[in-house]
């Protein structure tokens, strides 16, 4: 993607000007996005992105520049501009020689998106449409969005590392609208993976459509959710968004290194209930949030964050590693060359416990069963998080009684992970996009069914 000799030249030039660390990130990527509305392909677009980012450190400061122009002249000019900001002095340095990091590919692709015709992709979308439209006669509209991308990255830095990776992702997102008595509600389901079109051999597009329709159909017939504090049973798969928001973001070095996280200075301490063990694992073969190396050239790994309630580890990127006196652990991610990488989650989930999901519900006298979750967000410094319930039910006397419409759940991170009192045995993961200062990146969330003793349910007072 860039001549190794030029890369070496640029890095050595940065070092000679007094930078402590120089990194070059090159990205070349193809995206395909297709939208189907009401059974017909409404729009289709193909995108080709190419750009390059240059990052320099000096002690505890970092600076960044990016461009679409990979010419030698432009790259030297960028180094000069950044050096000026850092106000470094020319330094004695040891010219470095790059060595290629041998990256093993753990995410085998069978049907490469660029080699599958758009006609076939459109057919898949129409199957999803049928699955949704035919689910019930209340379904008034279906929007199917197909997205695949092929991203090649090349990273070289002044520690002598040179590494490449290729990430291929495919995702199908269905929004179904159900209408009844002048009211409308929507349901969404959007699975994806680090796979090509073989993804649809494992996930029937019709089922994906039907799942979105099922949620919409259920919710348009539901009452408003109750309001106030109550026990909440959160179903598996995308329910894991609770850990992602309540805890995961606050374990990122981005917040921890500044002391701007409720989990700062708590390594080795008990921060959660005994039944909580949580992992971030960027190595899972073909998972949505996986890659072979992170966007700083560090191989991804499995990081146990919390073990039986004890805080074991943070997510540490290269820039914050120095500040924290820790090693980067393969979680430096960025949306594209337009972003400075920082510590991010990949596939994050709570490990399974001993209960059957049915046992958890029958042990709950009154509360909310959150079957399908939407997105959420958090302020790591105060721990205040929120996430949306897309499909909910009332639990009364240990039984699920009636559907209730979506409501947002709010709480504070440390309180909530101490309030998890039952963990099920049905671990599953769901896919989403996680947004933060380094942009929007694919991430899995996951968990078995869990119960939280008390959460504020943002419904309506009757």
């Amino acid at each position, binding site marked *: 993607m860039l001549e190794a000799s030029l890369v070496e030249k640029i890095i050595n030039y940065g070092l000679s000007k007094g930078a402590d660390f120089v990194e070059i990130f090159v990205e070349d990527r193809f995206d395909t996005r297709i939208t189907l509305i009401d059974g017909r392909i409404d729009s289709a*677009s193909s995108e080709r992105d190419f750009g390059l980012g240059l990052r320099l450190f000096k002690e505890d400061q970092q600076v960044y520049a990016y461009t*679409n122009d990979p010419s030698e002249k432009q790259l030297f000019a960028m180094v000069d501009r950044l050096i000026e900001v850092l106000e470094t002095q020319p330094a004695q340095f040891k010219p470095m020689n790059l060595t290629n990091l041998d990256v093993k590919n753990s995410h085998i692709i069978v049907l490469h998106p660029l080699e599958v015709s758009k006609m076939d992709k*459109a057919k898949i979308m129409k199957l999803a449409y049928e699955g949704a439209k035919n689910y019930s006669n209340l379904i008034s*509209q279906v929007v199917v969005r197909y997205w695949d991308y092929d991203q090649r990255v090349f990273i070289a830095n002044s520690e002598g590392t040179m590494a490449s990776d290729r990430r291929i992702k495919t995702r199908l997102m269905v929004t179904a609208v159900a209408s009844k008595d002048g009211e409308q509600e929507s349901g969404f389901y959007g699975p994806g993976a680090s796979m090509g079109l073989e993804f649809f051999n494992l996930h029937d597009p019709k089922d994906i459509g039907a799942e979105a329709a099922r949620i919409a159909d259920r919710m348009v017939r539901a009452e408003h959710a109750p*309001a*106030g504090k109550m026990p909440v049973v959160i179903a598996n798969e995308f329910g894991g968004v609770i850990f992602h928001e309540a805890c995961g973001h606050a374990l990122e070095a981005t917040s921890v290194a500044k*002391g701007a996280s409720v989990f700062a200075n708590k390594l080795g301490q008990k921060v959660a209930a005994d039944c909580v063990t949580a992992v971030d694992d960027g190595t899972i073969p073909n998972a949505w949030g996986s890659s072979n190396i992170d966007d700083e050239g560090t191989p991804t790994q499995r990081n146990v964050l919390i073990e039986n309630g004890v805080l074991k580890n943070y997510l540490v990127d290269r820039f914050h590693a120095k500040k924290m006196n820790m090693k980067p652990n393969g979680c430096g991610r960025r949306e594209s060359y337009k972003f400075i990488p920082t510590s991010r989650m990949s596939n994050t989930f709570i490990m399974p416990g001993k209960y059957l999901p049915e046992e958890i519900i029958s042990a709950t006298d009154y509360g909310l069963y959150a079957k399908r979750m939407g997105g959420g967000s958090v302020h790591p410094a*105060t721990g205040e998080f929120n996430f949306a319930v897309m499909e909910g039910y009332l639990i009364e006397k240990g039984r699920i009684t009636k559907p209730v419409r979506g409501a*947002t759940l709010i709480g504070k991170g440390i309180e909530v992970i101490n309030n998890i009192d039952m963990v099920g045995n049905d671990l599953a993961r769901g896919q989403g996009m996680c*947004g933060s200062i380094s942009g929007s990146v694919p991430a899995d969330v996951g968990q078995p069914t869990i119960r939280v003793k008390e959460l504020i349910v943002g419904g309506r007072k009757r």
Partner: protein
Amino acid sequence: MREKQFAETVFSLAKKKGFDDCEVLISSQKEFEVVVSKGKIENYTDASSRKVTLKAVKNKKSCFATTEIMDETSAKFLVESAYENFMITDTLDEDDVWHEPPEREPFSYDDPFERMSVREKIELAKRMEEKSLSYDKRIQNVIMSGYGHQNSEILLFNTKGLELEESFGYGAAFVYLVASDGKKPKRGFRSRYGSQPSEIDVDRVAEEAASEAVSQLGAQNVKSGKYRILLRRDVFAQLFFAFSSIFSAEAVQKGLSPLKGKLGQRIGAEVLNLVEDPFFEKLPLKRSFDNEGVATSRKTFIDRGVLTTFFHSIKSARKDNVMPTGNVFGQRCVPLNVVLPAGSLDYEGLVKHLNEGLIVIALDGLHSGVRPVSGEFSLGANGYRVAGGEIVEPVEQFTISGNFLELLQRIEMVGADSDVVSVNWYGPSVIVSELDVAGS
């Protein structure tokens, strides 16, 4: 390859491929941002990039391709990909490229922030951090103190003879910090946008962020129930933008908006007016044409509570047999700038008028706790409790829930404390007669 030459190359390839018409939009962007924390540069970005988008039309069907490189290979890629996309597009909605140049002179933005030295911008970010910390000893941590600006230049060429050029941009300063009384940390955030440095008072940004965090210390819980609520001007703006897609004609036509069938009807209280004004003096972004080359215009889209228009692209306008409204920016059809004309009471007056209720100063979950299809929302919030016409205590950990259209109907008072609260909203705070609140 120069822009026009590149567009010509694409046009001739597209013609060979059998396209009827096409349009090339070239958007070049420059971005600068410095973020400091503890007096050190935490993040610093200085960059430029370019994006070229091809919209190609055949048999009234449009399809798209984009690239970031302008060379022969990319021109081929654009046309070939667009053709593949055309082959699968089977919508019955007709699209086209635009033919009529706007009457208004294009805007040209000569970025004054680029004339400041880099050093000066870094110093401003550091000064905001120092100001925040010295405001009160309970300010524990300035997470981000940032100063930045961006500008874009748009070039549009199409085969119907349009050749348009416009530049626009803005600067911003922001502070995100945490105050602590040793018990519960509370956050404070403030940002300020402007066309030039003089419009961004960095000291005020720092002080407002700091005073807000301090004023939230010792926040209490709220009992669940129905409350009268004052939505601070920035909060009302955020809530509007979370639902702005429902005003897009395409969403209405496709049954994805609760506004279907409501054109010309009352959808809000009589005191509510909303104006889309792409030329508004106090807001930084000004455009004479949108990304489809259609002339922009000032329009009161909610007039004394009545919905007067949707926002139309060329495609949705053809379907409804009306004119496009010049609102296509990025991939969406949205208002560029929104102005909420002021009422008579200033902020203190609004608090007095509220008498009993809650003030909401921040919302959480705006990307997930809103359902545009139904207008329903349920959002995390914090603010103050008001009793006897005075603010009595800060409150936290509650949600507000309701329906956006019902909320518009329930606006009982529009204030006079108008200000620039985001890059594209100028307006005052409002009082809503009733919303559902969930707390402890």
